[in-house]
């Protein structure tokens, strides 16, 4: 019955080794899908390459449906999985700042690491920038603190917030994602081709 390590089915000492192995697969998949290229990543905002959208939503839906199915079959107790906490304004404003950083630098932490691994110097600058940003946040923490700790709503899921049935929501999200994929292909045909 999963999750395995919190329930003691795999001993805790394996944690770091499993982390490295999972990371290797993560980095491999990111790089092989082309996410080590900032111009490919930025394409989603200009319509010349929607790989980010496709990978992101496919991964989210596959993992969502997969975890729900495993929960249904009894392999995983979905209540024991870590749910990212909701700090309302922190999520919105942090996400907004990250959005500007994304379209300016063309990288996010995971993809910039995979780009560092293949030798891109602009990715190295991006990682240094992220660390400087973390440093700035930590030094000015007293200013950010009300935003960081405020509006805590708990580790809630959409089922709690919106009151919708979990399975219907996933179904509608899947349909929405398929429509989005079709639309992105139509947009891409009409946008000027960029070679990168």
């Amino acid at each position, binding site marked *: 019955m999963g*999750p395995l*390590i*919190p329930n003691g089915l795999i001993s805790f000492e394996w944690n770091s080794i499993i*982390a490295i192995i*999972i*990371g*290797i*697969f993560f*980095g491999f*998949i*990111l790089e*092989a899908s082309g996410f*080590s290229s900032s111009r490919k990543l930025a394409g989603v905002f*200009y319509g*010349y390459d*929607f*790989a980010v959208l496709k990978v992101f939503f496919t*991964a989210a839906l*596959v993992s*969502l449906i997969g975890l729900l199915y495993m929960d249904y079959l009894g392999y*995983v107790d979905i209540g024991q999985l*870590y749910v*990212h*906490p909701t700090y309302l304004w*922190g*999520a919105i404003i*942090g*996400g*907004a*700042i*990250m*959005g500007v*950083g*994304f*379209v*300016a*630098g*063309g990288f996010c932490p995971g993809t910039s*690491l*995979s780009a*560092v*691994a*293949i*030798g891109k110097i602009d990715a190295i600058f991006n*990682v*240094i*920038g*992220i*660390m*400087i*940003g*973390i440093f*700035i946040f*930590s030094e000015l*923490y007293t200013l*950010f603190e009300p935003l960081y700790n405020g509006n805590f*709503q708990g*580790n*809630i899921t959409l089922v*709690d917030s919106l009151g919708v049935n979990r399975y219907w929501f996933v179904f509608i999200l899947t349909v929405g994602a398929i429509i989005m994929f079709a639309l992105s292909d139509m947009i891409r045909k009409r946008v000027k081709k960029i070679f990168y």
Partner: protein
Amino acid sequence: MNIDNEKNRHIYWNPYFGGFLLGILIIFTFYITGRGLGASGAMKSSVVTIVDDVSHEHAEQSAYYSKFLDDTKSPMNNWLVFETLGVLVGAFISGGLSGRISWRIQHSPKITRRRRLVFALGGGILFGIGAQIARGCTSGAALSGMAVLSTGGFITMLAIFGTGYVFAYFFRKNWI
């Protein structure tokens, strides 16, 4: 094995295939560890470690760094740091198999290399600040958060992509 590196350079996986594998990986990660993936967390640990090494008193007194300090072990001794090391290795292997490894600065032909580096650095700084406020980046908060239907995860994902689209016009010279 005859690998034609020049031709393979720009061939990437089909995005649906990559997304599918990534989803399976996330399922496995949750199944084994009970938590999702992450990327910015390791960078935070690095900053905490560096500040701690430079000036231990400053780190202890600060309200933020002190949260991550533990006298019994280094702040680098956590799951995300090991996972991040794995990311570097995995990306290196994939890039190596496809002939994509070389030192370069990737930039649009319409801008100079220095401009690309300036924006990469600036974008990184903004991302670092934002990732701390939102307690995660696209991998940790958005992707892994969505996999368990976390409200915060969805909000962060919408905020990132929404703001990106709004501000894309101002940065268009860098990309197209």
